[in-house]
């Protein structure tokens, strides 16, 4: 433990190699998964695999697992704000059609764009 409370952790090459293997496997898997028709779940699965791969890179290659709490907070807040941006914008796009209506015959204004 050094004075500033930030311990420099040395990750072993063996672990790095394992992560490399996992990432390559994930890449292969995501290509295979794309060739099966899962409808809308294709994209979900692809993003899920990508997220797992990203987590591996952050946790091990980037030493996120061994970083100080503060650094981890910085990482998490980055993704949190990204989620705010994506999520709140999606609230607009995903609710444009089914609007609350008093009348039985709403003048549904389509959102389709030319």
């Amino acid at each position, binding site marked *: 433990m050094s004075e500033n409370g930030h311990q420099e952790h040395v990750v072993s090459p063996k672990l790095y190699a394992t992560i490399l293997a996992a990432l390559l496997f994930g890449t292969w898997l995501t290509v295979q998964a794309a060739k099966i028709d899962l409808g809308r779940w294709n994209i979900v699965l692809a993003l899920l695999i990508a997220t797992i791969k990203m987590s591996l890179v952050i946790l091990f290659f980037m030493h996120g697992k061994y970083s100080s709490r503060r650094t981890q907070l910085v990482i998490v807040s980055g993704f949190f704000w990204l989620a705010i941006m994506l999520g709140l914008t999606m*609230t607009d796009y995903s609710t444009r059609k089914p609007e609350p209506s008093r009348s039985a015959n709403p003048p549904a204004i389509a959102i389709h764009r030319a």
Partner: protein
Amino acid sequence: MSGTTTSSGGEYQLPREHYLNASYGIRSWLLTTDHKRIALLYLAAVTFFFFVGGIFATLIRIHLLTPNGLLVTPETYNKLFTMHGVAMVFFFLIPSIPAILGNFLIPIMIGAKDLAFPKINLLSWYVYIIGGCFVLYSFGTGGLDTGWTFYTPLSSVYSNSAVTPAVIGIFINGFSSILTGLNFVVTVHTMRAPGMTWFRLPLFVWSHYATSLIMILGTPVIAITVLLAGLERIFHFGFFNPAYGGDPILFQHLFWFYSHPAVYIMILPAMGVVSEIIPTFVRKPIFGYSFVAASSIGIAVIGFLVWAHHMFVTGEATYAAIAFSFLSYLVAIPSAVKVFNWTATLYKGSISYDTPMLYALGFIGLFTIGGLTGLFLACLGLDIHLHDTYFVIAHFHYIMVGGAVMGYVGGLHFWWPKITGRLYPEFLARAAAIILFIGFNLTFFPQFILGGLGMPRRYHNYPPEFQVLNVMSTAGASILALGYLLPMLYLTWSMRYGKIAGPNPWPATGLEWKTDSPPLTENFRETPEVDWEPYDFVHRPDLGLTGSKPKLPGKLSPAHGDD
């Protein structure tokens, strides 16, 4: 600790060495990594842009004196208000307090020798200058007529003006803001002096920390947004262009994701300034320190959740509009908390009528009006009437000029003795503060009524029934212009002829007042240790305020007050 010497007569003299005379020559300025010198570089550049934006504003107001427009063609008028907005928002308001006062003061306030990354600090100034050059190039070669909001497809397809260089300039300038914010955050985390705990930080530092969060998290988004709009303009990419299926509303989402929090980049530092000025001139601790500090962070965080309230009438989903309106009301609460706490701080204080205090009180009044009228615009039902009218113009000028600029000018006066080592002329300064307050209200209050009447913004001419209010507004603008010219003149004058201030002329409690005025290049001769609570006047015998007689050497300077 102080290296300031006093002569036998008790008058202060400037310290023998300080950051201003540490080295000479143009290179020693342009290659400096001293945060204080960089702050002055920013002061020069930002003042230039304030002038540019101010001239555009003056022309706009003169033009609007008559219903059919007095001065310029519609094209020119559109360029004037666009360039006014771009210069003021991106090149004056956003960098003003953080890059000048924040840069100068944050390291000193936390007892550090410099920011965490001095070279990056200098880099951010150069980035600002390069961005500024692109924008000036755009102004000089045909101008810009898209509005500072760059709404597509007007900006990306239809406008015939010099949009591309302006967009590049704003893109580049964004990185200046990011680098400044990054530097502040890291500095506050890692460079604090021994004993300077988080809850001993001056509120100025808290508000800059919150501001920096917005700069870091928001600015990249405006960078990518204007980049996409630029690509659309140059290469016919179709991100936001309906002709290719793109959605102009998406541009607005991205734009306001930054640009709404950006108004908090402008106002939060000014709130920080006011939170410093008030305890100093009331000589008592700020009321509810932790609430004021937390409200800065609260504003920064909630401020990110409200952006689509700029889009209530674009056709965004009703649900989304309701959610964003709700969140917008939440952000009012931390702002209100600040105002209530400042007001409560005055209670049983020892209030002096020094210039910075006048600015701070002016800030409270104007910010209150600006904030309360924001409630009208956050209100879904009223926004369908008030959106895009002069009501909006008046509202955000109350926040940005009445709030941010009053805070900036007040802060400049407050720390002027620290920056230059000299006092400004008190009488002129008070006069200027009062002129500014009157001129400001005369300019912008009539615009609330114009907005209620439905006069849309960005009009180069208007129906004749709106003329009386417009004339009032223009008259106010000329008073306002005088109010800005006065400080520019006497502050420049005081740099050479002002009375020597001494290390702590007010006296104030912050760490920055424990070092020389102007400070050394390294800020402190030895690393200070902090063992007092913020804004505590009672346990600070070094301030010389505990006895019934002044313990400061000699007679107090006229800057102190009204006895």
